């Protein structure tokens, strides 16, 4: 009987992480909630660009929309907004 040497194909499959972190709610961390004053917003996308939690979605001609399930309330968006259109409000 011929024996075959074990090859990489015989290795068990690596533990591969499958569940996207979007399933985790990090919005509970928040102390201050970003809110938008649409009358001031010029849709420049600066808030979107600097969000470390990928929690602002917008297109070239939409207003920014906050994802309150994941936004941790760091306040970078409000600090960087050139028109001061984002106001941080204390959570209830």
């Amino acid at each position: 009987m011929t024996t075959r040497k074990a090859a990489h194909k015989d290795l068990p499959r690596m533990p591969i992480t499958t569940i996207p972190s979007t399933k985790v709610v990090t919005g509970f961390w928040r102390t201050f909630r970003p809110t938008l004053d649409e009358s001031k917003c010029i849709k420049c996308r600066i808030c979107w660009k600097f969000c470390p939690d990928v929690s602002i979605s917008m297109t070239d001609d939409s207003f920014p929309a906050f994802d309150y399930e994941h936004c941790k309330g760091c306040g970078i968006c409000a600090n960087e907004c050139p028109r001061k259109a984002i106001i941080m409000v204390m959570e209830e």
Partner: protein
Amino acid sequence: MAKATIPEEELMLSGHVGCLGCGATLTMRYVLKALGKNTVISVPACCWAVMPGPYPLRCLEIPMLYNAFETTGASISGLRAAYDMKGRPDINVLGFAGDGGTADIGIQSLSGAVERGDNVFYVMYDNEAYMNTGVQRSSSTPYGAWTTTTPGGTTGDWKRQPKKNMMEIMVAHRIPYAATASVAYPEDMVKKLRKGIDVRGPKFYHIYAPCPTGWRLSPDKTIEISKLATDSCIFPIYEVENGIYTINRKPAKKVPVRDYLRLQGRFRHLGEEELNRIQEAVDWDWKLLLRKEEFMKDM
């Protein structure tokens, strides 16, 4: 209404466990926007190793491999060799490590990979201490800083040594491409990573990534402090291509370095004398960099 100035595609997901205002996560977000889906990443022990949360969670849309703390350089060399063997030279192989994992514990494996000339990307996200284990000093912690192992207080035992210059160490390897970048200038960062795709050989990126938690900084100030770092010339934005220096951002008016230090609790203990000494050191380094750029122009 304005067009997006960086790619729209998001390869980093929300729901990661980075702290409020974390610069390390912004770095990952921009780096992956630049390199795209055709990328494999290798990460040692650091904040980024825990970002996805517990198994089986993931927060990247690309394969992320974990390696031992000191082995990022070796692991990307191995990944590169494997992909080349499989006929996939088009895959971007990226090592992504903190400053502790790069400037201290991983420096020999990085040096090996760069000396061998392996066709890999290496990002050192610099939050200027060992943050994941609770703010211990690294060789990349700047002079004057408080950390839990340079506690200051009545003994005045804050960090007395200057920051290690990783860019110069890489340039000494005759690396084909090395650049600094900052989370304050994502367009510049994306451009530099895209440039690296066409460079065969090792590419090193020293990226300024504030850690509000460890710097005792308000989390909304991550971008503001990064701009001040570059405007005060304490963290200049430049690139070195085959030994030729180019400074990418020259502040029109240099901000006093104390304006940068004063926003951060980790420098609160510094008095007039130390502030002046830091200003002198920053001025010296900036002058040296300007001279290098000037000198290399005719090479």
